[in-house]
C-alpha cells in the first residue's frame, strides 16, 4: 500500500479575491483545520498553505482517487461554502506534479510578483503548525523541507529575487547602489500623499534610519509623521532641511519645482559632497531634472523608475527559466527518494530472484542426475520450496514491518544491496535537513 501525494487548491490564477478570502485560513484557524484534515477519510498526512494569493491543501493517502474527491469536500466543509463555488476554480496535482507545484510555490515562481520574498516565510510558519499538531508525516516533512531548500537554492543561484519590480523596491535597490547602509541615512518626504507615504514606508521598512516629513498643510505633515514615526518639518523652510537629507522623496505636485537646482547645489556643498538620492514621484515633476546634472546628486522620476522596473521584469523572466530547471532536477531527486521508500517492488523482486535461483538449480539437478520417480521429484520440489521460504521469511518480515505507510529506506536499500536486486546505486536519500 503505497501513498500518493495530492495537492488541491486555488490561487490568484484561478479564483478572484472574493473567493480566495472566503477560503483563507486565518492564523488561529489553521490548527483546528489541520486536526480535521488528518481525521478526514483517506488522509494519512496533511498540510495547508494559505496566503492572500492561494489556499492549498497537500495530503498523502493510499487512494489518490478518494483524496481527489475528499479534499475539495474538506475545503467546502471547513469554510461552510457551497461546493459549487469551488467548481472550476480548484486545481488538483497528483504525485510528481504536486511536488513540483509545491517547490514552485516555495520558490515564488507561482507568485503574482515572481520572486517576491514573503511566500517562503509564510510557507515555513504554516508548515511548522502542521508539524506541531502532527498532521504531517515523513513524506510531507521531507517534501516541505526540500521545498524550503529548493527556494533557498534558487534565491542564491538565480537572480530571480534580486530585481526590484515595484516603485518602492526599485528605489531601495537604487539607494543601495549609492549608500553603504541605509541605517544611518535620513529621508525627506516632500508631499505627504498616498504614493509618497507608501514609498517612505517602504524605505523605512528596508532600514532607513530616520524620516522628515514636509507638506503644504502642516496638519497633514504632522499626521503622516506621527504615523510613520518621522519628524514634521515646515514646508516653507525646506531648503534649511535639505542638506540633512540623504534621500529625498518628492511627491508634491505644483506649478513650479519644489526642489530647485540651486537649493540642491547648496545642500551638496553643505554636505561636503556626500551623495543625495532624489526620487520624484509627482507628475508634474516636483524636482528640477537639472539637479541630476550635479555631481553627487541622482534624480529618478516616475518614468526612470518605470524603466528600471520594466528592465528588471524582463531579467526576472529570464532568471525564472533557470529556476524552473532547478525545480525539475529537485523534483526528480525527491521522487527518487520517495520511490526508494516503496517496499512492494523490493518484496516482489526478492521473491522472483530466489524463485529463479530455485528453478535454475532444480533444472540442473533434474537433467544432470538419474531419472527420479514422480513422487521423489515432488519431494525435491517441496524441499527446495520450503528451504527458500524459510530463508526469505526473516527479510520479508522485516521489510513488511516497514510497510505500514512508507517503508524505511535504509532497510529497502540494504535488502536490495545484500541480495543484489539491482546494480543501480542504493536509493538512500540525502540527509534530511531541518
Amino acid at each position: 500500500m503505497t501513498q500518493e501525494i495530492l495537492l488541491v487548491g486555488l490561487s490568484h490564477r484561478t479564483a478572484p479575491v472574493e473567493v480566495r478570502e472566503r477560503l483563507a485560513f486565518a492564523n488561529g484557524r489553521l490548527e483546528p483545520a489541520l486536526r480535521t484534515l488528518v481525521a478526514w477519510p483517506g488522509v494519512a498526512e496533511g498540510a495547508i498553505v494559505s496566503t492572500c494569493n492561494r489556499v492549498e491543501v497537500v495530503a498523502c493517502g493510499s487512494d489518490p482517487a478518494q483524496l481527489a474527491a475528499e479534499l475539495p469536500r474538506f475545503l467546502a466543509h471547513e469554510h461552510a461554502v457551497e461546493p459549487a463555488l469551488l467548481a472550476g476554480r480548484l486545481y488538483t496535482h497528483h504525485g510528481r506534479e504536486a511536488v513540483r507545484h509545491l517547490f514552485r510555490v516555495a520558490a515564488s515562481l507561482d507568485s503574482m510578483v515572481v520572486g517576491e520574498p514573503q511566500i517562503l516565510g509564510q510557507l515555513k510558519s504554516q508548515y511548522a503548525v502542521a508539524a506541531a499538531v502532527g498532521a504531517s508525516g515523513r513524506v510531507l516533512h521531507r517534501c516541505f523541507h526540500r521545498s524550503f531548500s529548493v527556494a533557498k537554492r534558487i534565491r542564491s543561484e538565480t537572480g530571480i529575487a534580486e530585481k526590484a519590480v515595484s516603485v518602492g523596491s526599485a528605489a531601495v535597490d537604487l539607494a543601495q547602489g549609492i549608500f553603504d547602509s541605509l541605517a544611518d541615512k535620513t529621508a525627506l518626504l516632500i508631499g505627504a500623499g498616498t504614493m509618497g507615504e507608501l514609498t517612505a514606508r517602504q524605505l523605512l521598512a528596508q532600514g532607513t534610519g530616520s524620516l522628515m516629513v514636509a507638506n503644504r498643510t502642516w496638519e497633514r505633515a504632522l499626521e503622516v509623521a506621527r504615523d510613520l514615526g518621522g519628524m514634521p518639518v515646515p514646508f516653507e523652510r525646506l531648503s534649511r532641511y535639505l542638506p540633512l537629507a540623504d534621500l529625498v522623496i518628492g511627491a508634491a505636485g505644483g506649478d513650479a519645482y519644489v526642489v530647485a537646482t540651486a537649493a540642491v547645489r547648496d545642500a551638496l556643498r553643505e554636505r561636503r559632497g556626500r551623495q543625495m538620492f532624489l526620487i520624484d514621484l509627482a507628475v508634474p515633476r516636483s524636482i528640477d531634472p537639472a539637479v541630476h546634472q550635479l555631481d553627487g546628486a541622482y534624480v529618478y522620476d516616475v518614468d526612470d523608475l518605470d524603466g528600471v522596473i520594466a528592465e528588471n521584469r524582463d531579467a526576472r523572466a529570464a532568471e525564472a527559466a533557470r529556476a524552473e530547471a532547478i525545480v525539475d532536477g529537485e523534483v526528480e531527486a525527491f521522487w527518487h527518494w520517495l520511490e526508494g521508500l516503496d517496499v512492494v517492488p523490493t518484496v516482489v523482486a526478492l521473491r522472483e530472484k530466489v524463485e529463479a535461483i530455485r528453478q535454475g538449480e532444480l533444472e540442473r539437478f533434474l537433467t544432470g542426475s538419474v531419472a527420479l520417480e514422480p513422487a521423489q521429484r515432488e519431494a525435491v520440489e517441496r524441499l527446495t520450496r520450503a528451504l527458500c521460504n524459510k530463508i526469505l521469511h526473516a527479510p520479508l518480515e522485516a521489510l513488511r514491518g516497514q510497510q505500514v505507510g512508507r517503508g524505511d529506506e535504509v532497510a529497502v536499500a540494504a535488502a536490495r544491496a545484500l541480495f543484489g536486486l539491482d546494480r543501480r546505486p542504493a536509493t538512500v536519500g540525502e540527509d534530511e535537513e531541518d
Partner: protein
Amino acid sequence: MEIVLLRGAAGLYLAATVAVLAGLVVRRELPARALVWLLGGGLLLQASSIAIRASRVGSLPVATLAEALSLLAALLVGLFLAIQLRASLLALGAVVVPTAFGLTLAASVLKGGAQPLPPVLRSVWLPVHVLFAFLGDAVFALACSASVLYLVQERRLKSHRGRGALGRLPSLETLDRLSATCLTWGLVLLTIGIVTGIVWAHEAWGRFWIGDPKLVFSMLVWALYMVLLQGRITAGWRGRWAAQLTIAGFAVIVASLLGVNLLGLGMHGRAY
C-alpha cells in the same frame, strides 16, 4: 625553477580571473570561494619564485623589470586577499586580478637573467626602501581600481539604467571610502619610500638629491595625492572628481614605473 613557479602563478591568476568574472556573472558561491584558493595558491608560487631568486642574488630581487613586476603583482594579490577575506568585494577583484595576471605574465615573459646589484647599492636600505615604495604602489593600484568601479557605478546611476547585469557593484559610498582609505595609506607608504630612498642615496653617493627621474615622478605623485587628500579632508572632495584625480595619479605612477625603467632613465633605470 623560478620561471616555472612564476608561470604556474600566472596560470593560477588566469584561472582566478575567470573565476572572478564567472562569480560576477553566474552569481554562485563557488567561484568566490575558488577565487581565494586560486589567488592564495598563485601567491604561494610567486612568493617561492621570488624567494628562490632572492637567495640566489643575495638581496630582494628588484634589479630587473621582470623582478620588479613580479614583486608588485605579489604585493597586489596579497593586499587584495587581505581585503577579500575581511569583506567580499568581488567587483574589485574584476579589476585587480586581471592586473595581477598581466603583471605576472609580463614578468614571466620578459627576459630576466638574475643581475647582481652594484656593490655601492648593497645596503639594508634596499629591502626597506623597495618594499615601502612597492607597497605604496600596490595600495594606490587598489585606490585606482576602486575609483574605476566608482566611475562605472556612477555612470550607471546617472544613465537611469538601474543596476544592470554586472552583478552587484559595491555602493558608491563603499567605493569612495575604500579609495580614500587606500589613498591615505598609500601616501604614508610612499612618504616612507621616498625618505628611505633619499637616505639610501646619501649613504651610497654622499648626496641627498640625485635628480633621479624616478624621484621627480614620485614627488609629483606625492604632491598630487597630497592635494587630493587635503581636498577630501578640508573641502569635502568626493565622487567623480576625486575618482578621476585618483586614476590620474595612478597613471603617473604607471608612467614612471614603465617609462623610467623601460627607457633606462636615471638610477632607477639602470638598477631598479
